[in-house]
Every structure is written in C-alpha cells, then in structure tokens.
C-alpha cells in the first residue's frame, strides 16, 4: 500500500523534475522500499521542488507546456481556495453576521465584495476551461483512450455532487444526530472527501491538458482567464482581511463565539485561518499565472498546437 502511495506521490513533483529524476527515483523505491516516514519525506521533497525548483530543470519543460501547467496550477489553487471560501461563507452566513453587516457598513461592503469576486472568479474559471473542456469532449467522442481520460475528471465531479446532495439531504432530514458529534464528524469527513474529489478532478484535467493539442489562442485565452481568477483570489483575500479586522474590532463578542463542527475554535480564529489559506493560495495562483506569462513571451511558445 505504502509502495503504491510512494509511486503516486512522485506525480506531485513538478513536471521538469519528474522528467529528469522519476525513473531513478522509481528504481530507488524498488531497491529500497519506504515506510510512512519515507512517504512524508517524498511529500516534503515535492513541496520543496515546487517552492525552489532547480533552474536547470526549466529546460525539461517546453514553453507551451509551461503555459498549460500554469493554467492547471491556477485551477488547482482555485479549487483549494474555494474550500477556504466555503468555510468563510459558512462561518459568516448566519443572521447575527447580517445584523453586524447592517450596523457596520465596512463589514457589509467587504462581505458583499467577497461574494461578487467569488462569482467573477468562478466565471473566469469557466470561461478559461470551457473551450478546453469542449475540445477534450470532442476528442473523447472519437477516441476511447480520451473517453477514459475525460471520465477520470468527471467521476470526482459526480462524486462531489453526490456527497453534497447527501450532506444537504442529511441537514434537512430533521435527524437529531446531525447537530451532534456524529453529525459534526460526518460533516468533517464529507468536507475532506469533497476536497479530495476536487483535487482528483484537477489532476485529471491537468493530465488531459498536457496531452491535448490546443490552438495557441485558446491556450492564451485560458491563461488570460486564469490571471483574472488569480486576481479575484487576491482581492478576495484582501476583502476577507478587511472583514476579519472589522469583525474583531467592531463585533468582538461575535468573533469570540465557537465555530464549526464541535465549536473547537472561535469565529475570529476561523476567519484568520481562512484568511491565511486564501492569502497563500492567492499568492501561489498569482505566481503560477506570472510563470505562464513569462513563457508566453518566450520564443517557441504557442507554436505547438
């Protein structure tokens, strides 16, 4: 089991790193199987390879592939950002927050701005990914191999929708346990499964995008919308910061109330954690988009279709 996980973890390394070192790393894993600590070491290695990629490995990835990786990277950060955003929405959806928003205009404006930016970001993701999805579907109609690849992205989406429907049905069923320990535990488990579905979908899309012949202008279009989504993420983080600061100073009583399943952390602490996640993910998305634009301007970019 751990051996399979270790081999799967290699897929989390940057493409250039994989192309250069994956065969050797697989050989090492065969010669010297790893345990749980070795698996964590591989995971940390993947994180480091993304944060500080060796410069010489850039040549392993063509400018065209770099643009595709940037677009799919922004999509991955968007999905993770959406999870943090959903947490923010659930934290601030109740009536006392609406009252606080009416009493303190800054809170109301920041909250409305987050929602508007979420719509803009979602629209940008759909506009960027739409043509590529249409292209993949058209190819899937002709080629069985591509049909399987498309289904790999569709299954997690269907799984996520099924989970969400189950959660909503459970919440409205009147089942007493939904507000108790079992219900809270179930909510956490379903949230984690939902996050897993999102990540699986993005990884499948990334794989499909790397193998799909795409007209250069469509790829550029995807990068433009990815940049819009990254900008929306950055602005949302700013708005959540304003909201959190406003709530902590103007409605301190509300900020200290317990939040989430089991109420283990206060609303203020939840908002700060959500803000931290949004800031990091927004910065990563901006960096991914910037890397894409740097490669678009390089000779050779966009020639492969």
């Amino acid at each position: 089991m751990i051996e399979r996980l270790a081999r799967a973890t290699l897929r989390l390394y940057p493409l250039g790193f994989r192309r250069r070192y994956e065969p050797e790393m697989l050989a090492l894993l065969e010669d010297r199987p790893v345990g749980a600590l070795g698996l964590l070491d591989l995971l940390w290695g993947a994180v480091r390879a993304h944060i500080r990629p060796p410069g010489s490995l850039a040549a392993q990835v063509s400018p065209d592939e770099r643009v595709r990786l940037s677009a799919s990277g922004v999509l991955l950060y968007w999905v993770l950002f959406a999870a943090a955003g959903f947490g923010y929405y659930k934290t601030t959806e109740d009536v006392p927050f609406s009252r606080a928003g009416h009493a303190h205009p800054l809170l109301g404006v920041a909250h409305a701005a987050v929602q508007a930016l979420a719509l803009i970001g979602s629209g940008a993701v759909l506009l960027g990914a739409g043509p590529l999805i249409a292209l993949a579907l058209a190819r899937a109609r002709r080629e069985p191999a591509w049909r399987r690849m498309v289904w790999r992205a569709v299954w997690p989406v269907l799984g996520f929708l099924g989970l969400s429907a189950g959660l909503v049905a459970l919440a409205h069923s009147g089942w007493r346990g939904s507000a108790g320990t079992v219900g809270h535990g179930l909510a956490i488990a379903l949230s984690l499964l939902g996050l897993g579905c999102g990540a699986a979908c993005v990884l499948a899309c990334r794989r499909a995008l790397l193998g799909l012949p795409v007209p250069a202008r469509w790829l550029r279009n995807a990068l433009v919308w990815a940049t819009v989504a990254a900008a929306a993420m950055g602005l949302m983080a700013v708005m959540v910061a304003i909201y959190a600061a406003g709530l902590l100073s103007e409605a301190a009583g509300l900020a200290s109330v317990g939040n989430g399943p089991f109420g283990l952390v206060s609303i203020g602490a939840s908002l700060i954690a959500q803000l931290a996640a949004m800031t990091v993910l927004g910065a990563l998305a901006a960096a991914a988009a910037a890397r894409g634009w740097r490669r678009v301007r390089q000779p050779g970019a966009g020639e492969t279709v």
Partner: protein
Amino acid sequence: MRYIGERPSDPSVLVLTSLADGPKHGYAITADVERFAGVRLGPGTLYGALSRLEDRGLIEPLPAEDRRRPYRLTAAGSEALQRELEVLRAVAGQGLDRLRVAEARR
C-alpha cells in the same frame, strides 16, 4: 562566503562526501551515507540534494545503467567539499578544544 549546506549533517554535504571516493547511484549513496554517518536519507531528500548539487555544477550525471544513474563529483564539487570539510574540521577542533579547557577548569 557560499555554503554547500547549513549543518554538518546537511544532505548536500553527505552526498558530496559519499561521492568523494567515486561515482555512485541513488541506492549506493543512501547505503553509504547510512554506513558512515548513521543518517538514512529519504528519497525526497536525496533527489532534492542531487538536483541542487547538479544545478550548481558540483556533481554531474553519468550514463544511466538500466534506470540507475550514477553521479560523480565535478572539479568544482571537489573544491567545494574540500572547503566545507576544512571549515567543519576547524569548527570541530575549536569546539573540542574549548570543551577540554572548560573540563580542565572544573
């Protein structure tokens, strides 16, 4: 002053030391490091160090044997390792001397 590693047990220093007596591939490096330093390098740490060292021109890959690719020190790598080990020897000597003096005072 440019450092190879941040501490004596830094993976980069361990890998360079392992390659000092000849080329080795990934498995041979980890086995060797475990033998002489008592440190087991995980695959992520090992290939992170190899990629950084290769990037800095301190080691170079040789043609792969099956999927196992040996690495060897470059001239720059030998010089860098020499400098690093001399610093470590000076630090170790200083530390041991000071401990001896402190011991004698007690």
